């Protein structure tokens, strides 16, 4: 039972923290100290329980999509929108949404959780559903090994009480299914065999061994061209025009569809589901486009080799001015090795116009070894962006950027004249 005075206190702290310009997680920290069971009590009162979404790539986009798809099925959804994807952030998000009696006006909670934090979270609050996206070579400087990350995701699956949704294209994720008890239901989402060949995983990249036959999937991404995708489910092929671009974003839609279908159960309404899917917009910095002097500037977030490879495969450089911005702040990862696991051959013909970020010269060096022509290098993002803008006034522009470079570039673009957001 949630104590109303705790809820009130939390909301007051949240309000004061915001007035002072404080971080989004601080009120959560205070409430955790005063009433450690607060988050559990609030969430366990939800009639449809808790959904946990985790994995290396695509958590934010998939969570956003799942929330919107569930809403289309008539659910009231609580989510940790602030981007604080750890337990304290969840508590802080609850404080923002509950009323002063301590009740959360929602049917279900859909939470994006970082792998390491999810492990602790599910021990206290076992989710009814979980969605595990992938284990990629990312954040090795935080977790040490890919196998360690896979173990964390297996832990989430084991704590799940009803259904686990898994990516059948990731061998480490598929392996989790075999370890689960029969009481837990497993649903897969997947790619068609044509797409699988086009977009190899980390393991397939330099490996000569062939993968085993994947398990049956509830939803399959069959093909896509531009932003029109064809999914296969309910024994039918269904074409949907999307506002998302890039294979990775569109594949996340297959994950969100699978998850939503299993949760919706008897509420399932295909017509409103497809309508909502067509209206989902990219999450913050994930394939956003802004207009600058009448030309689109696309920001493409890249944070690990598989993500960068998929991005390069998804977008043709033809006609575009291309910039790459690589930072190595903590949130980006300090180790630059990952750049060497991406092939840049696809940029050779068009060349790269601008390279920037703290590790601009590591990126320039990488392009040198793939013999990709490079026009301008400067570690300063403002100088680099201005170069891209002034030297290519009449061209659409695409910027591949790491997380903290993206934050800075958005801020800079926001300050430049005539910027309007189109997506």
């Amino acid at each position, binding site marked *: 039972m949630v104590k109303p005075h705790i809820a009130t206190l939390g909301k007051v702290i949240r309000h004061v923290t915001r007035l002072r310009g404080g971080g989004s997680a601080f009120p959560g920290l205070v409430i955790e100290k005063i009433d450690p069971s607060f988050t559990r009590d609030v969430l366990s009162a939800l009639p449809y329980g808790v959904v946990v979404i985790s994995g290396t790539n695509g958590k934010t986009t998939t969570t956003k999509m799942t929330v919107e798809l569930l809403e289309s099925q008539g659910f009231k959804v609580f989510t940790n929108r602030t981007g604080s994807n750890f337990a304290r952030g969840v508590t802080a998000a609850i404080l923002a949404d509950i009323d002063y009696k301590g009740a959360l006006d929602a049917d279900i909670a859909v939470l994006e959780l970082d792998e390491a934090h999810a492990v602790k979270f599910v021990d206290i609050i076992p989710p009814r559903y979980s969605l595990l996206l992938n284990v990629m070579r990312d954040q090795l400087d935080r977790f040490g090994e890919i*196998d360690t990350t896979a173990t964390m995701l297996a832990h989430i699956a084991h704590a799940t009480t009803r259904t686990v949704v898994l990516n059948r294209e990731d061998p480490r994720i598929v392996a989790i299914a075999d370890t689960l008890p029969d009481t837990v239901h497993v649903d897969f989402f997947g790619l068609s065999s044509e797409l699988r060949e086009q977009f190899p995983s980390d393991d397939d990249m330099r490996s000569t061994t062939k993968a085993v036959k994947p398990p049956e999937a509830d939803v399959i991404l069959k093909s896509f061209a531009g932003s029109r995708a064809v999914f296969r489910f309910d024994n039918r092929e269904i074409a949907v025009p999307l506002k998302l671009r890039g294979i990775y974003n569109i594949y996340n839609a297959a994950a969100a569809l699978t998850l939503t279908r299993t949760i919706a159960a008897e509420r399932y309404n295909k017509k409103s589901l497809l309508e909502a899917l067509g209206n989902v917009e990219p999450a913050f910095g994930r394939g956003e486009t802004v207009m600058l002097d009448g030309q689109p500037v696309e920001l493409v977030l890249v944070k690990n080799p598989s993500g960068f490879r998929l991005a390069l495969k998804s977008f043709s450089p033809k006609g575009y001015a291309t910039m790459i911005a690589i930072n190595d702040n903590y949130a980006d990862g300090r*180790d630059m090795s990952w750049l060497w696991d991406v092939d840049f051959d696809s940029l050779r013909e068009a060349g790269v116009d601008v390279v920037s970020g703290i590790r601009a010269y590591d990126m320039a060096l990488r392009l040198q070894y793939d013999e990709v022509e490079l026009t301008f290098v400067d570690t300063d993002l403002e100088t680099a962006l201005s170069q891209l803008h002034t030297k290519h006034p009449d061209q659409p522009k695409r910027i591949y950027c790491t997380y903290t470079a993206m934050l800075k570039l958005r801020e800079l673009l926001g300050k430049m004249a005539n910027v309007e957001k189109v997506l």
Partner: protein
Amino acid sequence: MTQQQNPLTIVQLYPDDMNIYGDWGNVLTILQRAKWHGLEARLVNYNIGDTFPAEADIVIGGGGQDSGQLKVQADLQKIAPRLRELVKNDTPMLMICGLYQLFGRFFKTSKGEIIEGINIFHAETHAGPARLIGNIVTSHDQFGDIIGYENHSGQTFIDSDMQPLGRIIRGAGNNGQDDTEGCIYRNVIGTYLHGSLLPKNPAIADFLIEQAAKKKFGEFAPTVIEDRFAAQAREIAIKRPR
């Protein structure tokens, strides 16, 4: 035979299982710099169960996860006599992280299991209490500053008859205790540095190519390669937080 008819053969050990920290960067750097120096080079991948190539002018091996090391150890023992013979003939080799450890006597895991190495380096590795992770700079008389990134839980101790590859300027290195990093024996280099190692340390790449070319053709006539980006990348890497 002329150089064109007889390319340098670069053998990459276990790319299927031991390739996680940008090890491709080292192979690519050797292939490209050899070409820029006017030499033909070809890549041969060696994986578990393959026939070891008859020609091997440079051998490169990468880092892996603990599970990758367990998978390759039996096969590595099988090709060990061949590798030892190549070492004795001064074939240049570069072993990063996991294979550096297995080129020593053994790796003792945190559970106390012994993974046997092939004893080319007189060295042994023990699982440590914490991973040694971060930017690292070491120094070597011939190669100058060696710049990279380390991420390993094993602590390696080299015997007194072995030379380290570098002395620590900043970072942990072999074990975080004795200021050594890596090992160099004849023309075989073992190190924990990736990032990748060779692109940012072209002096080491050219050393491997020079040794291979001299052995095969009796001479090496290097070209001046534009290493401006490498120099600038090094300058920035030195200043970044651990």
